[in-house]
């Protein structure tokens, strides 16, 4: 049953560009997919280790900027007569470096900020994102500041001299995002179901207890931040080479908030949660726009929805659905599902 639905879902997703010819819808799906990847990465931290990172957009933006800069090439003067430059490199290398640098920043931030917890951790991550945004805005020589990085090349893959494929059109980008999304999903699932994942869940549930049985708390938190930041960086790199323009607005706090809403509404700490929440909140703006609702009111609705979800669906949609599905089966007299130890 479960395998069947997974297969049906995959077939639907894979065949979608074949029967969906509306490019606008495809564009919305690509953007939603990119944000779902980012939300999945946030979920690894927020859902599985229980740390609310409100600076997650920093990793997304670092991935986007790094990948764009490497593929565009740049030259900066660290000292007036000491230029440091980089020739334009292939896009795949840029993406890889973007992921690595984002992960590295995650590692450093994790090292630094896991000295503190709760409210302090939240504020450190917010501050980090703000500092990065200010750097992107003010280091004009590197980032073009508010003028934005333009004409970012698209991803090209192939064997030199043989053939080359450019991810220029929307269906190709759709498959690229889908592929990265699936890889990220499998990576997170693998991590969460491993020893390290159990350690993370243990320290989410009771940090003192986890430490007392010998779990190296900081190590696992830093590991989670590293992976999470790397995946967020991948989402940022995808964004940069799809939209092909990057400005300091990618560091807007509102993107972090969008990711948080996606995770919370879908169900933090469940693998499917960010996907469900991401679909809802990725497609909701377009739905609201169809009713010609102004963007401000749309955000007001977001805020109110967030409050309502916390009040009425504190666990999120996926766990709530799962429970009602189980209840329904029990009422039908079927043996209760072996509770899918909500990974």
């Amino acid at each position, binding site marked *: 049953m479960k395998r069947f639905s997974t297969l049906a879902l995959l077939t639907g997703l894979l065949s979608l560009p074949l029967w969906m010819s509306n490019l606008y819808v495809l564009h919305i799906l690509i953007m939603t997919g990119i944000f779902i990847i980012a939300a999945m990465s946030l979920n690894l931290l927020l859902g599985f280790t229980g740390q609310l990172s409100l600076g997650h957009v920093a990793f997304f933006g670092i991935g986007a900027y790094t990948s764009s800069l490497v593929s565009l090439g740049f030259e900066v003067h660290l000292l007036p007569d000491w230029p440091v430059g980089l020739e334009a490199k292939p896009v795949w290398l840029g993406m890889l470096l973007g992921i690595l640098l984002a992960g590295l920043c995650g590692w450093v931030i994790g090292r630094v900020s896991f000295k503190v917890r709760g409210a302090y951790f939240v504020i*450190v991550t917010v501050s980090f994102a703000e500092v990065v945004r200010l750097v992107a805005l003010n280091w004009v020589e590197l980032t073009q500041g508010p003028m934005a990085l333009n004409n970012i090349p698209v991803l090209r893959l192939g064997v030199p001299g043989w053939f080359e494929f450019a991810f220029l059109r929307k269906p190709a980008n759709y498959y690229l995002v889908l592929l990265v999304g699936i890889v990220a999903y499998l990576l997170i699932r693998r991590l969460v179901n491993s020893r390290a994942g159990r350690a993370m869940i243990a320290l989410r549930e009771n940090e003192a207890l986890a430490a007392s049985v010998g779990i190296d708390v900081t190590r696992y938190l830093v590991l989670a931040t590293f992976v999470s930041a790397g995946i967020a960086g991948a989402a940022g790199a995808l964004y940069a080479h799809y939209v092909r323009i990057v400005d300091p607005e990618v560091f807007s706090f509102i993107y972090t*908030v969008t990711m*948080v809403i996606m995770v919370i509404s879908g169900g933090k700490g469940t693998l499917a949660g960010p996907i469900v929440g991401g679909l809802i909140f990725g497609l909701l703006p377009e739905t609201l726009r169809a009713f010609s609702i*102004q963007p401000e009111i749309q955000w007001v609705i977001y805020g109110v929805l967030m409050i309502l979800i916390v009040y009425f669906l504190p666990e999120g949609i996926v766990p709530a659905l799962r429970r009602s599905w189980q209840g329904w089966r029990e009422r039908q007299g079927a043996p209760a599902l072996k509770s899918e130890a909500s990974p």
Partner: protein
Amino acid sequence: MDQLLQHTLNALILGGTYALLGIGLTLIFGIMRVVNFTHGELYAFGAYMMYMWVMLAGVNFYLALVLAVALGIALGALIELLLLRRLRGADIDTTMLVMIGAWIALQNLEQFTWSGVAKSINSPFPSSPLVLGPISVSWNRLFVFAVAAVLIVATYALINRSKLGKAMRATFQDRETAALMGVEINTIYTATFALGSGLAAAAGALLGPVFVAYPSMGDLASLKAFAIVILGGLGSIPGATAGGFILAFMEELGAGYISSGFRDGMGFLLIIVILIVKPTGLFARRERIG
């Protein structure tokens, strides 16, 4: 040297309003354990109320100031009654998410109501600055500093001398015991949130005429208030007061001698450094206020 004097004076004057912001936030956190993300929106609300009363309704400037603060207190009480009361006992992350939701809703309501265009607010002060030898200061800023100083002293007096303040401090130390001694916890919470919000609205109402009012002004105010509070240690009022002035000095000197683009970044760098070096904040006296 003259330049340094000027920067110091500017920092002193800015620090007053920063301290107001910080004290409000730290009170709310200390007593209620709520990380108040709407704090900056209350600040923006104060500035917009000044705009509404002074520029649209034509009310006297000083009366408008009082009205703006009173409305800020009312809005704070409303938020507490509507959103936070039912979350009593919930963990800190839950309340944080609700406050983030409220923040987004409030900010966009402000943008919807007042449009994204920045509004300037007239003040009754002469435009020529007060010149003291090599340094000068505008009358408006002097007024801002004076009012901020009065409000800081009044808050200290309220916390340390009044009966309400005593009940607040008792709640801060031990909620259950305070309740057993007959302190109305719910009233204390509403009063605390209203007071903190009123201080934020006052800061906004004071700075609105100096700068301009715009919808996202609250974001930076919130983040700065967090920086100030972390600097002083969450829950410490003297810490928040000192933190406000320290942040103002850092910003003013950073903008003057390093780069004005990074003015607003100083606070965040400061937070990161403080948390690495001394995570409890500079002035935390082991979880006490007053």
